[in-house]
Every structure is written in structure tokens, then in C-alpha cells.
């Protein structure tokens, strides 16, 4: 019996996305219009489904350009989805605030989840108190002309939290203490350039958490920092997660790092998830040829490696996300395809769905399961 992946929500589900697509249109010239060349798109996110449970640190991994950051930004509606569902379990305070503004969000299931993809832009503001983003680049994501105090006070002013200056000062001081920039008074009047990379990233974290959200998209939060201080920032993030009851979507290209902090992981390739499951199971027993290649490529600090060349079971380069290959999008780079004539006609024609290979571990590859049976299921 083949089981295909479906993001079915339950009581513990914080967020789930279903067939999410975010396409960016390419600019058309007048000639294109005259020649009737159809509009073309960058298929940044091209049919992604997953589910994040309360308290998860859900890893989204892949190479640059695979759409992992766009997925994160789409969930926060920092970019708008082309199609698909983004189910989210709202807290009461969000619903109350919307009710005050006379807005009733679209409830889509029995658990009271709402579809973030359907919220009109003018009602997005209250949602920012629910979900926030930690950005990758601590050097670029803080306004160099504002003091740390101003940077942290800004969200409070925008969302009208803290009626007096003193109240806001207290909230900012507490936020700085929470990220261990102590004593807070010492940091408030500094400018970003006066801080080290690690300290700046703490400010970025404090800013994301100052509105007390419950869901955080962390986009490569430590990749710009020195290896020697990464663990410190990660531990801080984990401590805050436990203390504030947060759930993380952790975007990373570093599978070794993901192994330490995520409990579930999705591997993305060219806008789609190719493998999904509990982190340890996926990394210790990778099933998709792409995941296998990624893992084989990661260097580890073992001096014996220098005597051998690394075998990389992958060929070619990532194609452009404008012209996605038909069938399995990994096929042009796949060595399994080359060596397995039995499945080639499926690889060429039909996009493989995510199929369960062991408990909660899903892979999108025709190597797994009986292709005919899967095709029948797909037709249903």
C-alpha cells in the first residue's frame, strides 16, 4: 500500500502549506507581446506541501536558488503566493484584533485554522505579532542610522504596544536582556556598526521576538557568523524557543548544522520538496538521489579525506527555474535515472509525488514503490 504525503492538520499543527506556489513573472518586451510569446515565470516555489507542529524546529534545506527563502517569505506574506494554501492556527488575540477592525478571517478546517494566503493586504499588520522573521545578514538587516534602542522600539510604536515611553523602554530593556546583551543600557545608545556580528544577530533576534510572536522563520540565522560563535547564537535561539513556546521554520543550506537543531527536515530542489521526514532518519538514511549527493558533498574535519577524491553521485548544474524540466525535475542530474531503465519512462513524463518509505519519511522518486500503483493513485 503506497502512502502519499498529505499535510493533514491536527490539534498540534501550527502551520501547514499545501501545494504552495510562488512564481515571479519575467518582464515581457513589446516584441514578446507581438510575437504572442506567453508570459514566463521563475518557478521559485513550485508546489510545496509540509506541516509544522507546535514546538517543532522544522528545517528547510537546499542549495541557493532552490526556493527555501521564498517559501519562508511567502508564509509570512512578505511575498504573495501564486496559489496554494497556508493554514495557520491563530491565537485569540489575533482574532480579537481582527474582529475589532471588522475583519473575519477565512477558516478552512475543523481546527479553526485560517488561510494566510487569503488575507487581504490591509489586514496583514496584526499577523506580524504572530509570526516574524530572523534575517540572514546581521550586517544588512539593521538600519545603520538608528540606535539599537530605536531599532527595537520601532515595532512597538507601529503596533501600539506600550502606551508611554517608559513602558516601551522597559520592554526594550527586557528584550535586550533576553538575548543576553547586558547591561541593556549600555547597548541601547549604540549604533549597529559598533557591535560585533554575533551581537548584531542578537539584536535581530530581539527585534523578531519583541512582539511576542509564536512562529519564527529563521533564514540562515548563523551562516554569516564565524563558526566559533555559531553555537552560542543557536543555543540562545533554542533557549528562547523553550521559554517563549516558539516554533521555528529553520532555513539552512548546512545539513550538518540542521542535524543538531532541527527535529524535522525537508530537502528542497528547484522549488519542490524531494525528501521530508524526521531529521535523523533523513540524514542517516537518505533515499532521494539529491539528498544522497548533498550529504556526500559535505566535508568533515577528518585529515584522511585528503588522500581521496570525493565521489559525487550527481552530474551537471542546477537548471534555471524558468524552464523546469518535465517529469522529475531532478532527472537531468540524476545518476539513478541513468542506471535504472525500468523507471525511466516515469521519470521523463510524470512528476513523482512524495511517497512514504518508512514511518513519516517521504521521498519523491520513482525508485520507491510500484510506479503503476502510484500513477493510479495520482489519477484519483
Amino acid at each position, binding site marked *: 500500500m503506497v502512502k502519499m504525503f498529505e499535510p493533514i492538520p491536527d490539534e498540534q499543527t501550527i502551520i501547514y502549506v499545501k501545494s504552495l506556489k510562488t512564481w515571479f513573472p519575467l518582464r515581457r518586451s513589446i516584441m514578446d507581446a507581438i510575437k504572442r510569446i506567453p508570459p514566463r515565470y521563475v518557478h521559485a516555489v513550485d508546489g510545496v506541501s509540509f506541516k509544522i507542529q507546535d514546538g517543532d524546529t522544522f528545517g528547510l534545506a537546499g542549495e541557493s536558488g532552490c526556493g527555501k527563502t521564498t517559501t519562508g517569505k511567502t508564509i509570512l506574506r512578505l511575498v504573495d503566493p501564486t496559489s496554494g494554501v497556508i493554514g495557520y492556527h491563530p491565537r485569540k488575540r489575533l482574532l480579537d484584533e481582527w474582529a475589532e477592525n471588522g475583519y473575519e478571517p477565512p477558516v478552512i478546517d475543523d481546527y479553526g485554522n485560517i488561510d494566510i494566503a487569503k488575507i487581504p493586504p490591509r489586514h496583514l499588520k496584526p499577523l506580524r505579532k504572530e509570526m516574524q522573521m530572523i534575517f540572514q545578514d546581521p550586517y544588512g538587516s539593521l538600519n545603520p542610522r538608528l540606535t539599537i534602542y530605536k531599532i527595537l522600539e520601532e515595532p512597538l510604536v507601529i503596533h501600539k504596544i506600550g502606551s508611554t515611553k517608559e513602558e516601551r523602554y522597559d520592554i526594550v530593556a527586557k528584550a535586550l536582556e533576553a538575548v543576553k546583551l547586558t547591561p541593556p543600557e549600555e547597548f541601547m545608545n549604540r549604533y549597529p556598526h559598533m557591535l560585533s556580528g554575533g551581537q548584531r544577530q542578537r539584536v535581530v533576534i530581539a527585534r523578531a521576538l519583541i512582539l511576542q510572536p509564536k512562529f519564527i522563520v529563521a533564514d540562515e540565522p548563523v551562516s554569516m557568523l564565524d563558526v566559533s560563535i555559531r553555537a552560542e547564537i543557536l543555543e540562545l535561539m533554542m533557549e528562547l524557543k523553550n521559554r517563549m513556546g516558539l516554533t521555528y521554520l529553520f532555513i539552512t*543550506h548546512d545539513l550538518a548544522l540542521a542535524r543538531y537543531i532541527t527535529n524535522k527536515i525537508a530537502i528542497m530542489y528547484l522549488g519542490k520538496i524531494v525528501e521530508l521526514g524526521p531529521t535523523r532518519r533523513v540524514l542517516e538514511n537518505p533515499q532521494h538521489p539529491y539528498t544522497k549527493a548533498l550529504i556526500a558533498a559535505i566535508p568533515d574535519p577528518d585529515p584522511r*579525506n585528503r588522500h581521496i577524491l570525493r565521489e559525487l553521485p550527481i552530474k551537471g548544474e542546477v537548471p534555471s527555474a524558468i524552464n523546469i524540466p518535465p517529469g522529475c525535475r531532478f532527472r537531468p542530474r540524476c545518476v539513478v535515472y541513468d542506471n535504472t531503465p525500468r523507471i525511466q519512462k516515469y521519470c521523463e513524463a510524470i512528476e513523482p509525488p512524495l511517497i512514504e518509505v518508512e514511518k513519516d519519511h517521504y521521498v519523491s522518486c520513482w525508485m520507491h514503490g510500484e510506479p503503476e500503483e502510484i500513477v493510479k493513485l495520482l489519477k484519483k
Partner: protein
Amino acid sequence: METLLEVKDLKTYFYTTKGVVKAVDGVSFTLNKGEVMGLAGESGCGKSTTAYSLIRLVPPPGKIVGGKIVFEGKNILELSDEEFRKKYRWKKISMIFQGAMNALNPVYTIGDQLAEVFMLHQGLTKTEAMSKVYELLEMVGIDPKRARSYPHELSGGMKQRVMIAMALALNPPLVIADEPTTALDVVVQAQIMNLLKKLQREKNVSIILITHDLSLIAEIADKVAIMYAGKIVEYGTAEQIYLNPQHPYTQALLRSIPRLRGEISKLEWIPGTPPDLIAPPPGCRFAPRCKFRMDICTKEEPPTIEVEPGHFVSCWLHAKK
């Protein structure tokens, strides 16, 4: 083995308006012919400045103020700029620059850029040079037809291959690779490292690989030097450094690397930040962040001790006073 390069007490300072930044402050090491050395450290530790000193391209206000760089028996710091440029730079010592993605000229084809090396240094005509360019491109795994491409038409990995081709064009005995794979994805990074390894063996070229990534150094280096705040704190063979690290800094660095295999132990970090190189702390520069700090560490600079043959450590833990 034949010694190719001997660096002795190299000092490179930057004379800024705020004070003198001692970016490289007494660095010494030797490199044999055909050997690969990894130079590792956090950002700002002076590893890139060391590289630029070796090829005499330290940007102002930086200046090499002391020490010797003996290359094939000759102190290259004594040569005039003109002589070094004509006889050494690129012919004897070449470099794969950091951020290679932007190091190529966007308005020339890669063929033209590679041909320039031969035309300037060997006085070849354009046609002669181009035939060499095709060979070079083939060597680094690029279809020679791509010689007519402009840099923007190539992927990041291919651009990096072009940079490697350029560095190896004149068959120099020493190549300095400054973070050759940053900004590349892991699969491409592994391909580039494979290529470097292969070419290193074929041509028996010496490489100094500069990176913050100790895992990457393990891929290729025979010797490893760990740099901290302008000084080399530990130096030895790859086995000595990875399997038997002796300096607290090296030990902490190795424990901070997340690993893909084995038990998941708690990742460690090094508290604090590297010192300001305008006014480094007295004594051992790592002392303020070191968990084994003793009284003497903050007072006197530690001597360099040979703890086993070829394995040097600058730490008071190993010095008997």
C-alpha cells in the same frame, strides 16, 4: 623534501587614522615543494593579509614592516616592485582570489582574460595564447567553446574554475587560494575541491589554502596552521592538528564544528570576541577567551613549544617555566 617557502617573523601592519592595526604580527612557517598548507582562523585574524603579503599585494594603508619571505632561497621582500612583478607574481606565486565571482572582468570574454596572462608574461601572440587557453579550460573541466562566454554567462562554479585556470596558467610552484569556495553550494564546493586536489597532484604544485572552514582544510592540506589575532598559535601536520590538537583555541574550534556523522554532542562555542588588533591584550592574545587561563597568560606572551616533532604550540600550558 625541498623547501619552497620560508616565512620568518612576518609583520604586516595597517596604518589607519585610529592607530596601527597589527594584522599580521610575527608569523613564521615553512612550506615544502608540492605540499599543501591550510591556514585557518576566524574573520579578522590576519589570514588574508598573510596571503596578500606573500604575493606583495597588501592594500594601503597596509605595509609589510618586518620579517622575511624566502622563496626558493631568495628573500622576495628585498626585490624591487618591478622585479617582483616581472619575475615572481603569477610566474612563481599566483593567487585564487576570494569572491572569485566578482574578480573577473565583466566586459571581456573569459578567453580574452586568460589569453592576457600568456600575452603579458610570455609575449605570445593572440593566436598562440588562445590555443593555450583552450588547453587550460579543458584542464579545469570547461568546454573550450566557452572561451567566448562572458563571465555573467557562467555559473558560480564555472567562474571559480576559470579563476583556478588563471592561477595555474603559468605553472607556478606556489598557488595561494584565499577562500576559494565561499559563496558556492556544497556540491559545487566539493567539485572545486576535487579539481584542486587533482591538479595539485598532477602538477605537484604547492598550495596555501586560506579559509575559516577547518572541514575544508582537512580535504586537502598536509599541514595546518591555526591563526588567531595576527599570530599562528598552532602548527603541525593535518593528523597532529585534527587528531591531537594542543592549543585551547584549536580544540575549541574543532568542537564548534557541527558534524554529519557520529554522536550528536553539544556544540561548543568560544565566548567573547577576538581582540582589537590596534591594542591587543598583553600576554597571550587568546587569554581573555580561554578557559584554561592562568596568571602568567595575561602577563607574558607564551613561547612556541615543539610538543612533538613538527607540531608547534604557543601556549603556556605546554611551557615549563
